[in-house]
């Protein structure tokens, strides 16, 4: 085996192989984005609560009119984008903590991604449809 770096029979340790190659710069990306989206939702929480309060007790026509206004649509889109990303990361942590069967873990992580993207896209589509007034 000449390619000592990739051979399973190599005496080199995993750390020895990567030493001096520099950081991958993606090792903490989920950690960072979970906090980024958390701060985003913290900032958006009061506007979102105000919007929900405005919608309470209104019929469809009234609700549709409020939801289609630009500031309301933008605030909700930002909140949905942040929450879908945040919940995708959070659920993946939960899955990785509790699901130890490798295949089941892969399937669960995949389904988690599908669900989170579906939630984000369905909500986004609904808001854009309301905004376009179709």
């Amino acid at each position: 085996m000449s390619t000592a770096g990739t051979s399973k029979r190599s005496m080199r340790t995993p750390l020895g192989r990567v030493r001096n190659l520099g950081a991958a710069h993606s090792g903490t990306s989920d950690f960072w984005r979970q906090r980024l989206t958390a701060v985003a939702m913290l900032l958006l929480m009061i506007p979102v609560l105000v919007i929900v309060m405005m919608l309470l007790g209104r019929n469809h026509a009234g609700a549709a009119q409020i939801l289609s206004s630009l500031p309301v649509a933008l605030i909700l889109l930002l909140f949905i984008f942040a929450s879908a990303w945040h919940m995708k990361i959070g659920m993946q942590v939960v899955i990785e903590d509790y699901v130890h069967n490798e295949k089941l873990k892969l399937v669960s992580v995949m389904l988690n991604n599908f669900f989170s993207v579906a939630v984000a896209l369905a909500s986004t589509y609904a808001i854009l449809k309301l905004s376009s007034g179709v």
Partner: protein
Amino acid sequence: MALSIVHRATGIALYAGTLLLVWWLVAAASGPAAYANVQAFTGSIIGRLIVFGYTWALMHHMLSGVRHFFWDLGYGFKANEREALTWGAAIGGIVLTVLIWIVAYAIGGGR
């Protein structure tokens, strides 16, 4: 205090609860009949309980998350500080939830 598992549990509840949010937004985009269905559900006793629970889960998860920010930034590790942050999040979550519902009923959401 076993609040970290509550943080996780409320996170999972909020994850499932987004289905309600999606249903509500898609119904609003679909038309009056679909929107009336959502309102009939959220206006029912069971619907109100679910939305109340969702409000609490959101407020608790938010404050409990702020607590984690203090720790991420390196503050609040002393025993009394940990206790204060944890109790603050637990009580604050309940207080905010009740306040939100009082405002909601006051402006006519109880109709």
